[in-house]
């Protein structure tokens, strides 16, 4: 008894004691639980566009994610552990995405597959959410348009690595506030900040997005116009 009291208490990230001693027992239980969790992840395929086809390819004969214990695609969010957002997320489907995420029980993870899900990709326009992390928290982002199945498999392995480091004693990252249900994942000022367009390669106007589509004026035309104007 006295020995147990001298063991350091597991600390939550915010510095509060959880009251559970970090003992040989808890680390062993963590090991077993994490081993079971990471080798039987049931993905919830939130496939919308091109990436969903690569996700299907990852599940099919050549790539076969059954090797990771993940072939059991769970189309019901209530029996799923891992949401794979594969494809573009429009504002019309954003509430659906948030709702499905809220319906998934803890512990749960999320992979944002492809450029559109991660940042809006090539669709910086009126209808596409500029990154699904504005709606739900994301663990792993996969670049690519679409990522190859190998990319998705690598992301799955990164999620497995992440699960390895988790502890039952530290349940803070698994706690969800009831206020968060149906709310954006990021505060408004952060959304504005991360949604800035990249460079000016497409010569768009940040304020309005309106740009003339007319003919590009060639130097000869301009000279002719100036001559006409002078007359």
């Amino acid at each position: 008894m006295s020995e147990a009291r001298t063991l350091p208490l597991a600390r939550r990230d915010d510095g509060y004691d959880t009251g559970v001693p970090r003992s040989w027992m808890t680390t062993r239980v963590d090991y077993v639980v994490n081993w079971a969790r990471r080798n039987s992840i049931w993905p919830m395929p939130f496939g919308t566009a091109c990436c969903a086809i690569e996700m299907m390819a990852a599940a099919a004969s050549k790539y076969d994610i059954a090797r990771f214990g993940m072939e059991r695609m769970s189309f019901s969010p209530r029996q799923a552990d891992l949401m794979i957002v594969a494809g573009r997320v429009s504002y019309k489907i954003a509430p659906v995405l948030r709702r499905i995420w809220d319906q998934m029980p803890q512990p749960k993870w999320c992979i944002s597959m492809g450029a559109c899900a991660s940042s809006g990709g090539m669709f910086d326009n009126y209808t596409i959410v500029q990154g699904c992390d504005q709606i739900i928290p994301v663990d792993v982002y996969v670049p690519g348009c679409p990522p190859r199945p190998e990319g998705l498999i690598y992301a799955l392995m990164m999620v497995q690595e992440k699960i390895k480091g988790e502890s039952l004693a530290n349940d803070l990252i698994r706690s969800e506030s009831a206020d968060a249900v149906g709310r954006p994942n990021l505060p408004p000022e952060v959304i504005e900040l991360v949604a800035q367009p990249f460079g000016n390669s497409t010569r768009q106007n940040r304020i309005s997005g309106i740009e003339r589509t007319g003919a590009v004026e060639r130097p000869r035309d301009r000279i002719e116009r100036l001559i006409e104007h002078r007359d």
Partner: protein
Amino acid sequence: MAETDIETVQPQLITGALRPDSLAGLPAVEMLHRKFGGSIRAESIDAAGVPVLTIGSDIVHQALSRLKTEPDLGFDFLVDVMGVDRGAGRPIEVWYQLWSNSNGRQLRLVAPVPLDDLTVPSVTDLWRSANWLEREVYDMFGVTFDGHPDLRRILMPENYDEGFPLRKDFPLRGRFGRAEQVRRALNRAMDDTYAREELAMAGLLDEQGRVTGEFEGAAMVDVPHDAEPTDLVDGLEGERMLINMGPQHPATHGVLRLVLQLEGETVERCIPHLGYLHTGFEKTCEYREWNQVVPYTDRMDYLSPMLYNIGYALAVESLLGVEITPRCRVLRVILSELNRILGHLLWLGTTAIDLGAFTVFLYTFQERERIYNLHEAYCGARLTTSVTRIGGMLADLPAGWTTACKSFAEGIDATLDECERLLTNNSIWLGRTIDVGAIDADTAVSFGLTGANLRASGVAYDVRKARPYLGYDAYDFDVPVGRHGDTYDRYIVRVEEMRQAARIIRQALERLPDGPINVDDPAVILPPKSKSMASIDSMIAHFKLVMEGLQVPAGDVWYSIEGSKGELGFGIVSDGGSKPVRCRFRAPSFVNLGALSYLVEGALVADVIAVNASLDIVLGEIDR
């Protein structure tokens, strides 16, 4: 042994009618002049050889009605209805693209509608395909169609209040900041996600038409058939049930949402909701240069991307008046047919999964991986290929590619045999597909179905035969045609189409000529790097093309090819600039899906899965 009533036919090719030299003597034009001479404001022939008549918007219904019903004209297909906004306060144009399958003629009516009175008579009573097409024009341009039975937004949320996205005065990124857009998206009310009709069915509207409650899954309510949307329906003791299928459902092939009213197991009403994947392709393409549009095209139909690449390039080339090289033509045929197989294979695999046969999915994906390898060897990407450039292709074929393609085209038949052994005479498959979702030829034409869905009903309309492009008339292939128009015929027709596509590939590989892959026109195609570093002319051409972009002469065109889902049309307007003014994609599965309610009403819930799968939809092009 199931009775396969599939026959292969050679549709009659009516030559001479396809590309008229002048409008004089065309019966449709003569008739319109005779009847509505005063209302015809302009006439021309567009770059694809389609006669175009600009008419007053008041005579739209009368003119279209005559064009459809007069026997010697017989424009039985309303292929497309689209809007064009040229900006600067000019009237919004509504284009009606027509096709007469019996006479082999195309025609386009253009009705300019002034901005202060955006009203056109609806033609939903003439063609059932007009229903969704007109709703889309209303959604995107705000043009009201008089007499439309169900005029509400189709792609944007129903209560979307920011305006009409494809108008020129609508900003590309919407009217609000991103944070506000996210906030609005997550705070949707009930009437944003449900049609008034559905809320009435669920008993959630009070007498004033206000929403009174929260929709909670399957509400058991009894709705009289003649109920007004505002009628108060009380009691939960009825036997009808209102359920949501989708938008996140494994068997809707994407984010399609169907609201089904059931009586027991029978579907009484099916109300599809689209737009969950609305990506703003058409708007975004107006802000991209002509060649920059190509990567957008393959993200619409990601199941057979190169067909979109090739169709778009052909449409713009017809505006430019560029004749592509012989090698490029044959290569495009090979890639088109390869992608037709790619699209149909995915359809076969997923449809089999939906009906409970998993093995076929694994077989088809093996073949798809072989096509992906060919894609990868050619362009580096597996499915977002972007292979075409205006005037050519991104590169010539790598060494050994034709040999690999040949061995694929010779091996595909064996896999198809294997799949057919599993399905064609399988009693479960037969039970789930025969006489399920049947549609007769006339109704299919009225719904504007194209592709395998139409041919399964017995109409031999294939753009490759009716209006040959890329020299398709020089290839020996058949068009499979069904008889019953049910799910089983659609399956058989698609499998046969894959065999015919492989046949075309084998022929094309034999005759692939040597020579350049790109046109020799410095105003269209970038000169090779070695040349632009060595000669001043090439360097100037390179500089101009990079800095100014490709300039496409002012003009309109509506060009279509045979996609893997049906007739794939491109309505393109140029003002002579480096970017399109309007880039319309006539997505075949958008029009095909319009028939879904007709096909499933009265059928069982399980048949909804079979019928929806058999239509071969891809939400990327439906929602665009």
